[in-house]
């Protein structure tokens, strides 16, 4: 492929247009409010970013395979609640409790995946039901109340939510998790055999199956991975604020899907981009943070967030049409 052609396809790629818009947004916020780029504010954004970003990585792979998961926000809430209950009320060792949380997430993902693939119900309906079951379980076992705050430093807390300073910036170890998992996801989707399968399944499932690709198994494992990542993000969040709440993560599923599609991954499957998702995660984080700083009234946040997402999607659609025409 000649260099010129490669460059133009890069510019037309959805993650590139998202990236440009991210830069513009950051510039606008930076000009509108000097505090936007202050160490404190950047530290704040970087603290929140991994929690949704980690889920978005799993969601990107799942969407690329043609499925999605609405239960991630509920899993984000349930996993730490179960772990903390075991530790606080059951006197279980934190390591064992985390193991139990992991098994729980695997089970939720496996049930999602098995129902979607083996019974053939759309993932929208299955995971919507799972959202209710999981959120309901979190509310019931806590009787609707947040758990007592739990603040015992230890290996696992440091591993998931330890913090460190670089100059006047304060970073959490969760950022390393996000970076590491992002690199792994990029590798999987672009360079590994599995990524080829994931894209092929989302692009044309029958073709993939006809070539001997185990489409159902791949999807089930992606549901499990997404659930586990949601639980991991929930634990990171709970450790960071030293508390678990049964309503934590409410609405995260839509925010995460927004991050993924704003980044350029197709909702219909086949085309996924992890780089785009990282850009999308940064963008939604920056928007939520920036519009507070520029003084948009609190209750009007979502109007802006929704409008910016819509604008992004329209842009992607137009670019797509343009590319198809040429």
């Amino acid at each position, binding site marked *: *492929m000649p260099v010129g052609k490669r460059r133009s396809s890069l510019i037309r790629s959805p993650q590139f247009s998202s990236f440009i818009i991210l830069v513009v947004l950051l510039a606008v916020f930076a000009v509108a409010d000097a505090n936007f780029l202050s160490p404190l504010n950047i530290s704040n954004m970087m603290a929140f970013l991994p929690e949704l970003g980690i889920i978005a990585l799993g969601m990107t792979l799942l969407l690329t395979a043609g499925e999605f998961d609405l239960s991630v926000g509920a899993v984000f809430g349930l996993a730490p609640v179960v772990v903390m209950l075991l530790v606080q009320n059951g006197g279980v060792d934190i390591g064992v409790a985390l193991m139990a949380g992991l098994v729980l997430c695997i089970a939720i993902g496996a049930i999602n995946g098995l129902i979607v693939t083996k019974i053939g119900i759309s993932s929208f309906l299955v995971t919507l039901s799972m959202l209710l079951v999981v959120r309901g379980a979190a509310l019931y076992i806590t009787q609707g109340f947040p758990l007592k705050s739990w603040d015992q430093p230890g290996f696992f807390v440091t591993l998931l939510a330890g913090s460190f300073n670089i100059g006047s910036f304060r970073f959490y170890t969760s950022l390393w998790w996000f970076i590491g998992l992002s690199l792994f996801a990029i*590798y*999987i989707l672009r*360079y*590994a*055999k*599995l990524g*080829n*399968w994931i*894209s*092929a399944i*989302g*692009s*044309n499932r*029958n*073709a*993939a*199956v*006809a*070539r*001997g*690709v185990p489409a159902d198994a791949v999807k089930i494992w992606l549901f499990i991975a997404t659930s586990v990542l949601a639980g991991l993000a929930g634990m990171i969040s709970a450790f960071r604020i030293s508390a678990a709440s049964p309503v934590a993560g409410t609405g995260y599923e839509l925010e995460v899907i927004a991050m993924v599609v704003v980044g350029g991954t*197709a909702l219909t499957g*086949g*085309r996924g981009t992890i780089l785009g998702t990282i850009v999308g995660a940064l963008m939604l984080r920056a928007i939520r943070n920036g519009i507070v700083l520029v003084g948009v009234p609190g209750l009007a946040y979502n109007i802006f967030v929704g409008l910016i997402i819509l604008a992004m999607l329209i842009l992607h659609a137009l670019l797509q049409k343009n590319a198809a025409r040429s």
Partner: protein
Amino acid sequence: MEVLRLQNLQKSFGSVRALKNASLTLREGEVVALLGDNGAGKSTLIKAISGVFPVDRGDIFVRGEKVSIRSTRDAMDLGIETIHQDTSLAPDLSIARNLFLGREPVSFGWLGVFAPLDLAKLRKAASELLKRVGISKKLDADALVSTLSGGERQSIAISRAMQFAAKVIILDEPTNNLGVEETHGVLRFVKEVRDAGHSVLLITHNIHHVFQVADRIVVMRRGEIVAEQTVADTDLLTVESIITGADMSALLKEARAK
């Protein structure tokens, strides 16, 4: 030499007998056209051969050896490749990635599904393949399949089957929705495939195409094979009348007489 032999295949779906005692032989380097109206059992027959579902009764022989085909993978391993027009390629993947889908060349194979694709090898093999099948001039191995025309997609799918040295290539309606020129391109390609020593089972509605490329014609009606003729020994009207079960030549004579 006999490549594929189907003996008394039977398959029912509930009370519907989709296949009743279908027998068929495919020899090396020949194109056999499988004809029949909708519901005649053509697709049931090819699905049974390509491993989509097992037959209820009957035997399948590949090169004289009795085999059991339980999955699409089994069929592929036996050298039977099936190409459906809309289900053979993933449009969002490049030509190279499609060519090797399910059989990707990897390094560090012990990593299983996490093994990295050998992209250099993939691209090289893809370009060589495109060159060998004579479509290298126009197509880039990195181009997405979604940017290709229907005829190009057919050619890619067929060449993929050739590449894996398939003994039997089953083409399911390969010329549907193709323009005139593209159709001719695909039919020419089918002849090349045969000349390269592969056997082709061609399923189509279009009898004209059959007369252009096929060596033999097999007609199915209501789950049974009702006729088997070499192309040289028959003509369009005869075949058409067998397919519909009506005696077209008699009708035609009648019409002419009026």
